């Protein structure tokens, strides 16, 4: 066999190797969490949905576990997530603070009255500034924050029963009178 005719194949094999390394490399990048995980949540203070005159801030929530959930009525995936949030609220393991993101208040109130309200408090982020501070790319996104104000987990998409069971609950402290996670629900 004339080795000249093997050159294209050899070049191609080299290219495939580069691409293969590239894919695996990108996978490592993919599992990296948000750079904010493990760090204090950026300070935020947002108006309440029901009473825009009042506001809620990260300082007031110091000392408590909470989930900060970014959503909007324009976001169809948030609707898919809603069921799970309602269930989580009934479990009452952690308070969920809703951030109605780039939305209209009337639409948000309508949504909550129709579908039920899973949130302890709902605040609004109309200009999206807080979302930018937290690096929110698309709704829904949720942050689990501990009493020290440190983000311990970020869910970059819809909270599913699986992610609630395997990512959120195990990070929360076991509650008195409530079986430890995994022992049954």
């Amino acid at each position, binding site marked *: *066999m004339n080795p000249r005719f093997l050159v294209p194949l050899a070049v191609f094999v080299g290219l*495939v190797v580069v*691409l293969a390394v590239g894919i695996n490399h990108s996978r490592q990048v*993919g599992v990296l969490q948000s750079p904010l995980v493990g760090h204090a949540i950026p300070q935020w203070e947002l108006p309440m949905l029901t009473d825009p005159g009042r506001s809620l801030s990260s300082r007031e929530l110091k000392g408590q576990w909470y989930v900060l959930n970014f959503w909007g009525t*324009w976001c*169809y995936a948030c609707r898919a997530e809603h*069921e799970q949030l309602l269930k989580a609220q009934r479990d009452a393991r952690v308070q969920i603070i809703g951030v109605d993101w780039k939305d209209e208040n009337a639409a948000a109130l309508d949504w909550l009255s129709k579908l039920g309200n899973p949130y302890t408090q709902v605040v609004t982020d109309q200009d999206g500034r807080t979302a930018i501070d937290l690096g929110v790319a698309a709704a829904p996104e949720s942050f689990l924050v501990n009493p020290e104000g440190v983000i311990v987990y970020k869910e970059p998409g819809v909270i599913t029963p699986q992610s609630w069971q395997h990512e959120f609950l195990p990070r929360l402290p076991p509650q008195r009178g409530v079986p430890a996670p995994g022992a049954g629900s």
Partner: protein
Amino acid sequence: MLPELGHFALVLAMLLAGLQAFFGIVGPALGRDRWVAATTSAVAGQCVMVATAVGVLVYGFVNFDFSILYVAENSNSALPLMYRIAALWGAHEGSLLLWIFLLSVWTLAVAVVARNLPPRFAARVLGVLGVLSCGFLLFTLATSDPFHRLIPAAADGRDLNPLLQDPGLAVHPPVLYTGYVGLAVAFAFACAAMLEGRMDPDWARWTRPWTTAAWAFLTCGITLGSWWSYYTLGWGGYWEWDPVENASFMPWLVATALIHSLAVTEKRGLFKSWTLLLAILGFSLSLLGTFLVRSGVLVSVHSFAADPARGRFILAFLGLVIGGALALYAWRAPLLKSSAGFDLLSRESFLLFNNILLVVAAATVLGGTLAPLIADTMGQTSLSVGPPYFRPTFLLAMIPLLLLLSVGVHANWKRGRLESSVRALLITFVAALVLGAAVVLGAFGGRHALAVTGLGIGAWIVLSSLVDPVDRLRRRLRLSRALLGMTLAHVGLGVAVIALTGVEAYTSERDIALGAGGSAEVGGYAFKLLGTQPVEGPNYNATRATVEVSRDGRLITTLFPEVRQFWVQQQTRKVAGIYNLHGTDLFIALGDDLGAGRWSLRAQIRPLITLLWLGPLLMALGGALALSDRRYRLARSAERATMPAAAHGEAH
């Protein structure tokens, strides 16, 4: 229920494509003629199933079926019908389905025409296409199912990417994909020849029209994309050398080389193994390019949205198909001997230079496109490769190519004698230079004297291409469609070169800030902002500015550039105001609200830009004309030639 039917149709299509591959490749190898004959039936079945799946998804889009995840993600109840259909190729899953659909349409076309080819060879071609279809269908079903259900169904969809909500972009992907996928046919012909272990003397004649057709579609697709980015992205650019553009340009360069090397293989029986390699390379680059872009392999290095499962599947498939073809090439290509020789100044030589330069150009583009990926895998900090790399390296290959073209079209096959053409070459060369200089001095006041080179080269290509056909007309000789097509394509290239030079050298551009009633001068034209007002579209709100353009106090036109804010995705998209004045575009795009009634605007005067769209269009038309030449109309098979009655019946 319907989406499940669509999913099931895809499963059946995959099985049928598998059968098509099996019958088409194993049948001829074992000499089983009934298997060979069954290949066509498998093709027909596969096409029907794929078309069913496409139909179901389109039906879902048209009827707002937001229980299909893909529909919910890419359309909205306020989205106009035309874009609900175009939304089919608005994202990964659907474009993959479109790719599969176009592949099955090309396959069907081949199956219909291939009735006149030797049955075993035809079966092999269809078999190779079956492997491709089967692989793509498996990929879709395993990683990118377009019929995935969303439970519970969304109340409304997330809308189509606003950038895609434009007539130009609605047609651009299907046309471009038709070109991409069409290269699969040349690839299949090459693989079939290698499987046979011999190249029929007629092989190049069978392959050429398919390659030309795919090339013409690619040409149109790339031009449409360029035109779209010119008028919607808001900065008036038409080519930025980004990976998406490069992905379509590399196969085009190699396909152009392939068209020319096929000419040599057809006329002289030379360059056989080289032609095979180009046929493999063209489709490989179109595969590689599409997936670099579509799978996010290239982008994924920098983003979180990478789906490694998809990337791995693609890579395995690429490795199997391209690696398989190249291994086959290493095994079989040495068997193909080209015995004839040719002189240094023969047409064969010029076409060889053409091929080398085009492949070098494609390689520089590939290198630049992959460099960031390679740097990243080697742990380097992210590397960005842009026009400062691409422009000079690309020109380095292109300028000699363009200069050789004018001489090459006058070279004879085999014999290296240019004497008879020297006079014509000199006359056209001088005429082109004078023309170029006249344009630079006359129309542009002598600015950018170097533009004479570009304008001269373009004009020389146009003039020298016309010498031969004009000469034939004078001698009252017949002009074949192939010759006319070639001439038209070369003239188109010359026109494009002229346009590129003009646009690059003589564009005047200014970013201006104007309040209502304010005006600014750009390139001799006065742009006056009369005011802005809100307008409402079917699914967006827009700010529309009214801008009067005048020259020497005389009103030329009133333009209405817009910034559209789409409701659902909260994204903006610009629509520039463009007026074409004798081939020169007066371009105005609306920028940001600077407050206090003032707006930023970008004004451009782009001379000769109309020719930039016209040139490629002529090239594509030339391709269409050439492939309709009578020598590509396949003679009826020997069997039918002996049965005139049957042939007669067929004609009606």
